């Protein structure tokens, strides 16, 4: 009888729970080849820096994180296949976003199908958030807000110095095109006449005709929805043709640090502007440590750091805060938490998600290259661009001649 009682007791009692110490696999599809390879590599650096940092601190929930990275060759169809594989074959517990709005949009649908949280930093175009998905969270500045500060600054100028005409040229891309649309509407409302407005295919190889069109319009200012390839082609053509707009801003490309300098030459960076929400000297929590870790791991200088790096790093930070808060890697709980949390902190600044998953706490800064440094400026209450403290530089307007 006693033996029987012992047997029943043994069966009834729960076995001692062994702590799960296996690594947490995080699946990521990145553009390691193709048109977006340079950005994909920078985003990978950001993700890896975060993984190194969090593992040094014991990982997530005491478990090391392991990044399972596959290349999508900058292809929207391959990125879909990749996330299906990462989730259903590789059994990754979490996934991070790819590079670019186009790929994020394509991937988000398949990730939503599996009920995964899709935190991303490099897909902030509005089309990502118009799909009605509940699982997408962008830690970066929404794309449509990127050029608003610039447009408002131009509009705030007295009529005597305000540019009279503007030229717009953008890739047919869901990240760049919406930015220019918003900026153009603001500028047109302030009386800046549009004298050139063209959209060109992403696969364009010869930017000469587009540059020629901008030059021929004699626009006072140029707003370009670009990446590094096209903005550097435009700058080369503008310099060759002695065309000196009073202001030149590219949606992306001039934020690529040393790559931008290498592409256009240091003397052609002067005065070129780009919108962003991060810079190496920003006083956001953890930013200085991230910059130091980047320099230790990859070398170079702080100015070499692409803005894609903190985007990747911030994705990891948001996930960590969500995992810590929910004490799990359950994606449903993470999604619910991210929709309810009031504020998160990242190296890019504060993050708060609206109902569509866009970060409404990010501040749009305008950066300008001055003497080899990319300096941050922000709008004051009068819509003037002033240096972000502790810097005291003045915005260069008009842009110096090439």
């Amino acid at each position, binding site marked *: 009888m006693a033996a029987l009682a012992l047997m029943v007791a043994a069966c009834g009692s729960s076995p001692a729970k062994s702590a799960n110490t296996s690594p947490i696999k995080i699946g990521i599809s990145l553009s390691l*080849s193709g048109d977006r390879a*340079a950005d994909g590599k920078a985003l990978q650096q950001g993700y890896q820096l975060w993984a190194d940092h969090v593992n040094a601190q014991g990982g997530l929930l005491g478990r090391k994180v392991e990044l399972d990275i596959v290349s999508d060759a900058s292809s929207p169809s391959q990125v879909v296949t990749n996330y299906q594989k990462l989730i259903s074959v590789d059994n990754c517990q979490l996934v991070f976003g790819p590079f670019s709005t186009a790929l994020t949009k394509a991937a988000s649908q398949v990730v939503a199908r599996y009920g995964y949280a899709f935190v991303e930093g490099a897909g902030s175009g509005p089309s990502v958030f118009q799909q009605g998905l509940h699982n997408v969270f962008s830690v970066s500045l929404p794309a449509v807000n990127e050029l608003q500060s610039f447009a408002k600054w131009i509009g705030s100028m007295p009529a005597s110095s305000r540019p009279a005409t503007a030229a717009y040229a953008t890739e047919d891309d869901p990240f760049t095109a919406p930015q220019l649309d918003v900026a153009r509407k603001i500028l047109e409302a302030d009386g800046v006449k549009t004298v050139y407005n063209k959209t060109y295919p992403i696969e364009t*190889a010869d930017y000469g005709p*587009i540059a020629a069109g901008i030059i*021929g319009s004699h626009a006072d200012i140029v707003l370009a929805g670009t990446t590094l390839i096209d903005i550097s082609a435009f700058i080369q053509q503008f310099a*060759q043709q002695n065309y000196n707009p009073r202001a030149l801003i590219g949606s992306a490309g001039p934020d690529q640090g040393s790559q931008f300098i*290498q*592409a256009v030459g240091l003397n052609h960076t002067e005065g070129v502007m780009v919108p962003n929400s991060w810079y190496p000297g920003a006083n956001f929590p953890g930013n200085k440590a991230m910059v130091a870790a980047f320099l230790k791991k990859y070398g170079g200088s702080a100015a070499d750091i692409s803005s894609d790096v903190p985007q990747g790093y911030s994705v990891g930070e948001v996930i960590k805060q969500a995992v810590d808060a929910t004490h799990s890697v359950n994606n449903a709980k993470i999604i619910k938490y991210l929709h309810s949390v009031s504020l998160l902190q990242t190296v890019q600044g504060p993050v708060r998600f609206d109902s569509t998953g866009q970060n409404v706490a990010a501040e749009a800064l305008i950066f300008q290259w001055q003497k080899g440094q990319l300096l941050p400026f922000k709008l004051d209450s009068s819509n003037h661009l002033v240096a972000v403290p502790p810097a005291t530089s003045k915005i260069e307007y008009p842009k110096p001649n090439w």
Partner: protein
Amino acid sequence: MRAVIDGVLTGAVYALMGAGLTLVFGVMNIINIAQGILVVLAAYMTYVLNRYLHIDLFVGLVFTIPMMFLVGVAIERLFIRRLQSQGNRTGLSILVTYAVAIILEGLLTIVFSADYLHLHAWYVDRSIPILGFYLPYIYLMGFGLAVAMLAVLYVILYRTRLGMGIRASVQSRLGAELVGIDINRTSTLAFGIGTAVTAAGGMIFGATSVFNPNSGYDLISILLVIIVLGGLGSIGGALIAGVVMLVIEDVTAVLWSPIWSSTMFFAVLVVVLIAHPTGLFGKPEARAQ
């Protein structure tokens, strides 16, 4: 007018990049999909010479042309020669050269990473004012280089025994073998020469565009169209076709929209091929083999 000038100058550069492709196809029935990455490889070679040895871009051709010749010889010996006995040689060449392109792209990525580069020199960003237009030095020099290189190629093909052998191989491989021409040696030299010419195209490409190991893909589709339009195996045809296509593309972009440039580009190709299936200057006997 500006668009026409740009198209002429740019078209000549593309013709230079495509000259090797048309030569190789004309002689060997090989479609060299790796031509785009070979252009990029040449740009990287020029970059290394310029950055680390401070050799001017044009002076660097003294080194890059022979180096690219050797690259071409190596590719022909290692990969292309083995297709000789295969039935569907042309079709297989697409796969094999695509594999070569991927290998080269991978190697370049390992050595140089995916970071974008650009060749710099004092004349890259400067221009000369002529008749109200600013003509960039680099495009003028590139145009001159293209004409010079293509002229040299013409002399080789039409004024040397090697050239006679190459042209004989184009007309009839069997016939050329029967009269004692070493087809293997001819093919190797043709591939090497075709790749060597790419050195010049790569240098101009690197001076006019940012590039990274992935830049070859955008090039190859344009180059294939140019050589098909010009007539497979016709060097002069490649020049004419390059100029015509780029002028059409640029004028369309300026007068209409950049979105329609590619459409016009390919529409012209279709119209020409319907009227003249061998291209503008292609010879039917070259394809009779």
